[in-house]
């Protein structure tokens, strides 16, 4: 081996050594990084709406029987499979809806607006395809219901049921069906739909309470309700007829109110007139009596003169007011009979 070959061999070995050194260095760094990742990768934050629990080797961990980690905290857990962190959104409301009792709507079916009503009316109600409820009076209605629940006990919520939301959904359907079977169609759809909803809520509340799933019911909503598509027109007719009935009754009540007011007014007028009459008649009588008493004093003193004076004053007063006066000569009994002819409204007759 000459010098040139030796030199090139040493250079190759050094390069290999350097490459290996670099690889081992990188490996060392990787192990250290993995170590830090292992240590710090287990940290987690429990959000404001959550509570968390740690299962260590599958078992609930916690000090002094306190297994829940409250919200807003940074925590640390060993990586899986040692620890498993379960976060439960316990402070958030969960809405569970069911369309079990709603008719099937074909979103792919394109129907002209004018044909839509007929198409809906003619579509049959196939069991298992279109959902509905049967009311106490053996009628059919469609409804969409939803319930709002909240997790009251996160541990029970996680441990008791594999799919708690599905259970609540089925309980909701059961509560709706059970209550509807005791309600008439008109009551459920129109007249007492809020009471109907409250009855379902009460039933569901009882079911959830006895289920022990760590859930509490907040509200139940009857989001949509309708009679069957084929009977909608008939139902609307009933609503219109009912409204018409109420309108007629309210019109009659308005008439009665007006009539009574008129009668009250007339009554007041009659009584008022009677009181005026009473007042007038008594006042006149009193005045006349007083007048008579005074005249009588004069009459007793000088009867004839008093009478003549009164008579003449009266005639003068009366004749002064009269517009047309005719004074005719009164013949004596032995004179010939005289005739006078009067036309009471001569001007009018002339115009005509």
């Amino acid at each position, binding site marked *: 081996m000459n010098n040139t070959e030796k030199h090139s061999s040493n250079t190759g070995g050094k390069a290999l050594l350097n490459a290996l050194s670099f690889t081992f260095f990188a490996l060392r760094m990787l*192990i*250290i990084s993995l170590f830090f990742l292992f240590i710090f990768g287990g940290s987690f934050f429990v959000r404001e709406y959550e509570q968390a629990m740690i299962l260590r080797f599958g078992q609930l961990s916690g000090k002094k029987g306190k297994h829940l980690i409250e919200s807003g905290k940074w925590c640390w857990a060993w990586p899986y499979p040692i620890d498993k962190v379960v976060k439960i959104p316990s402070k958030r409301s969960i809405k569970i809806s069911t369309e079990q009792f709603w008719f099937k709507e074909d979103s792919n079916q394109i129907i002209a607006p004018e044909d839509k009503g007929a198409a809906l009316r003619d579509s049959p109600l196939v069991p298992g395809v279109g959902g509905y409820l049967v009311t106490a009076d*053996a009628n059919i209605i469609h409804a969409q219901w939803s319930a709002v629940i909240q997790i009251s006990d996160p541990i029970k919520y996680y441990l008791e*049921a594999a799919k708690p939301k599905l259970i609540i959904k089925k309980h909701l359907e*059961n509560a709706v069906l059970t209550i509807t079977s005791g309600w008439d169609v008109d009551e459920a759809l129109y007249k007492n739909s809020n009471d109907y909803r409250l009855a379902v809520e009460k039933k569901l509340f009882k079911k959830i309470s006895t289920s022990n799933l760590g859930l509490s019911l907040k509200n139940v909503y009857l989001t949509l309700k309708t009679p069957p598509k084929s*009977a909608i027109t008939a139902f609307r007719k009933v609503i219109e007829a009912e409204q018409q009935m109420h309108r007629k009754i309210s019109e009659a009540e308005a008439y009665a109110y007006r009539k009574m007011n008129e009668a009250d007014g007339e*009554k007041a007028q*009659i009584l008022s007139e*009677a009181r005026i009459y009473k007042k007038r008649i008594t006042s006149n009588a009193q005045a006349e009596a007083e007048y008579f008493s005074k005249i009588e004093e004069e009459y007793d003193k000088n009867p004839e003169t008093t009478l003549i004076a009164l008579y003449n004053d009266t005639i003068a007063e009366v004749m002064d007011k009269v517009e047309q006066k005719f004074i005719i000569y009164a013949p004596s009994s032995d004179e010939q009979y005289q005739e006078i002819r009067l036309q009471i409204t001569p001007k009018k007759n002339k115009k005509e």
Partner: protein
Amino acid sequence: MSDHNKKATIHWPAMVMGVIVALIFIFTLITFQVSETECAIVTTFGKPKALDKSGEVFQYKPGLHLRWPYPIQRVWRHDNRVFCFEGAEGKWEEVQTKDGKNIIISIYCGWKVSNPKRYFERVNNIKIAAEEINSVLRDAKNSVIGKYKLSNLINSNHSQLKIEEVEKNILKISQSRAKELYGTEIVFLGINHLGFPETVANSVFERMKKERDRLAESYLAEGDAKATEIKAKADAEAKMVIVEAEAKARGIMAEGDMQAAKSYAVFNSEPQLAAFLRKLESLKRTISEKTTLIVDTNTAPYDLLSADSINIEKKQNKK
């Protein structure tokens, strides 16, 4: 430091890594975890580990447990929580009630493993378990529904409604069978669909329409009747009010007349004078501006217009 020791020092991370991996491997081979949500049984060469002679299988509590590595021992786990499924999902079938009405009823239930050994032996699969429980439920449902009338399932008289009783009876029958056959416990059960066959549903629609038409007509008739009744009542009451008012008015007027008559008593002292004064008063009241009055010269004071009036003066003078 020798070269050997130096190399060992340089490669310690790799060695530590290897040891850790080996330890983890051995650890996973000889241990198993049981979660809080699970139940587990261990079989040794395929045979479940029995706790006592009665054959009750040992149930491992949640946590870490030791075992012999596979294939000596094998761990079977099952979710120990309640599962929910709908019995008639996609399988709608008609059931006949006691009064011969065909209806469609769907039942849902919640179930869990109560006997892990039996469950492990008979089904050991959630899907298969659900199918088997569904069969149990179907049989129980058919036998129970046949004992009740349709009016026990839908009725506005709540004392007649027996849905909860039906559910309890189905639960009672299916609970014991599911436990005995598959080692499962049915925790709860309920009806979540009650319907009619397609043909019946269509006839229900027709009936509903006729009922609605009848109801609409009855509302209209009721509206007319009530409106007429209200109006007639109002008319009568108004008349009554007026009649009463008129009666009362007559009383008031009579009272006035009576009081006036008392005042007129003074006229008795000079009845002729009173009559004369009344006549004068009547004259004043009855004759107005538009009156056309024809009087002759016999009427005073127009008798002055006659020739005899002078004679009166003379007579007076003679007197």
